[in-house]
């Protein structure tokens, strides 16, 4: 490689603090502490850590759902998130999310068709009804939900957990994003269904040139999907590097604990 490609997403000193009212008075809780990393095109970076490690907070900030307390985020070299910066519609086209709970990621009162229609209409990605219908069918096919005509009319409660996550992925794909932020997309699914979803994500990455930020507590799935790994403990990055080397030779004791807990020794 003659030239290192400029990173797609640059996260610099990202910090998020919450003030929590507890019985002992007001306290500032630092959920994310000066986190910095890059995400390149076509790459999967995994953020691993336990509940409370701040990984979900970081994902939410990067998704534009929460404002960072300190730090900046650049997309294609331009600042998009940070003090005084609010996420634009263009940002929302580039960066999409897939969340953890298949039972909550889709609105129970709306059909699958509605879920896929909204991003297409909001971002004006289709010109008429026919184009819309075509695109919806295309999206469902790309996540393996066929026959597409049947699935469009279904409501979330008629779908299995794995199917719901597929719809959530299709929804994220609708705006043709460059980056997908995935927060534990398989942890609430049955074991035998997980692999299907992870394979789908891997295939989509290759076919569409996507980058992922994959947040999880399970190092085994991080190893399956990701190229690079960041280990988070109490909001701080304690170790990072190429996935395979971090797993083979963990430097930090917390990483070793996580490895053991994920069944990798």
């Amino acid at each position, binding site marked *: 490689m003659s030239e290192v490609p400029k990173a797609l997403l640059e996260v610099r000193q990202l910090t998020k603090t919450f003030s929590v009212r507890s019985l002992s008075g007001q306290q500032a809780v630092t959920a994310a502490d000066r986190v910095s990393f890059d995400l390149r095109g076509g790459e999967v970076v995994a953020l691993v850590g336990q509940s409370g490690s701040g990984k979900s907070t970081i994902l*939410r900030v990067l998704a534009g*759902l929460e404002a960072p307390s300190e730090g900046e985020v650049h997309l294609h070299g331009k600042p998009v998130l940070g003090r005084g910066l609010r996420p634009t519609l263009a940002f929302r*086209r580039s960066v999409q999310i897939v969340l953890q709970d298949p039972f909550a990621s889709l609105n129970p009162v709306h059909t699958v068709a509605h879920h896929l229609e909204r991003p297409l209409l909001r971002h004006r990605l289709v010109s008429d009804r026919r184009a819309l219908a075509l695109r919806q069918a295309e999206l469902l096919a790309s996540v393996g939900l066929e026959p597409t005509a049947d699935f469009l009319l279904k409501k979330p409660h008629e779908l299995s957990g794995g199917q719901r996550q597929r719809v959530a992925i299709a929804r994220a794909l609708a705006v043709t994003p460059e980056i997908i932020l995935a927060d534990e997309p398989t942890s609430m699914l049955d074991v035998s269904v997980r692999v299907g979803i992870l394979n789908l994500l891997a295939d989509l990455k290759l076919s569409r040139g996507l980058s992922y930020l994959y947040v999880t507590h399970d190092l085994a799935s991080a190893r399956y999907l990701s190229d690079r790994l960041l280990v988070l403990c109490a909001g701080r990055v304690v170790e990072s590097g190429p996935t395979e080397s971090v797993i083979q030779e963990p430097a930090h004791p917390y990483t070793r604990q996580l490895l053991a807990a994920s069944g990798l020794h």
Partner: protein
Amino acid sequence: MMLLRGIWDSRQARLGLALLALFAAVAALGPFLTRDPAAFLADPLLPPSAEFWLGTTRQGQDAFAQLIVGTRSSLGIGLLVGVLVMSIGSLVGLTAAYFGGLVDDVLSLIVGVFLILPGLPLAVLLAAFLEAGPLTIAAVLVLTGWAWNARVVRAQALALRRRDYVLAAIALGEHPLRIMLLEMLPNMTSIVFSSFIAATMHAIGAQVGLEFLGLGDVSQVTWGTNLFWAVTNQDILTESWWTILPTGLAIALFGFALAQVNYGVDEVTSPRLKVDRAYTALVGQRTGLRRLLTPVVLARSDADRERTSA
């Protein structure tokens, strides 16, 4: 839509809806089918008879006609207030919950102020100063009633605000108003409906109360003014129950009908309230609050097993 089907499932709700339909029919068609309630038609204070089903008032007016015609105004105002209270309250509650932060603080402060205001005294005061009439009363009741609704909606909306599908909608770039009305509100129909019913019940009671005190337009025919005149004419002293009791019963019956529909709404929100007839039939006891041992009902044969699938 699930809500409507769920309500239909409940026997009590069906009864309530039937009664409400009856009231609606009376309100809509009644005035065309009865005599003029304001006309002086016969001797005063005649007891109920074949000619005058509820007798006559002190002025010799047809009490039955007064009841029927009064339905339209009272129910109409009651429902109007209910709808307005629900709309304003829901909008404020949703906005406060969605935006949080400063917006929530300001809105909650306003809601708090309105909640502290003593409802009935304020209503009496306003009705006394403003031009008398049902619309004034409606305005007054909306002003004093929307805040409670707002608080209830806000609480429920706060719970929904953190749901993943709302976050996904935000991440897709949807407009806040669209998210509030089309993503969050449809998931709150039970509570909105419930508080609408409560607001309507309260409105009818308060309206009747204000008019009873003489603060309405006493020349109009409503349930409340009927009662006002009955008291002013000292009908109790003359034991002319037919000018008072029927109106009172009508109010109570309407409240009862609304309460029954409310049961249906409750059952939709908490399915556990539904008495499971199949279970009761099989086990011989209700699914009460007391935790029993899981019952052992041995199906001796396949025939038995078919029987258990009620």
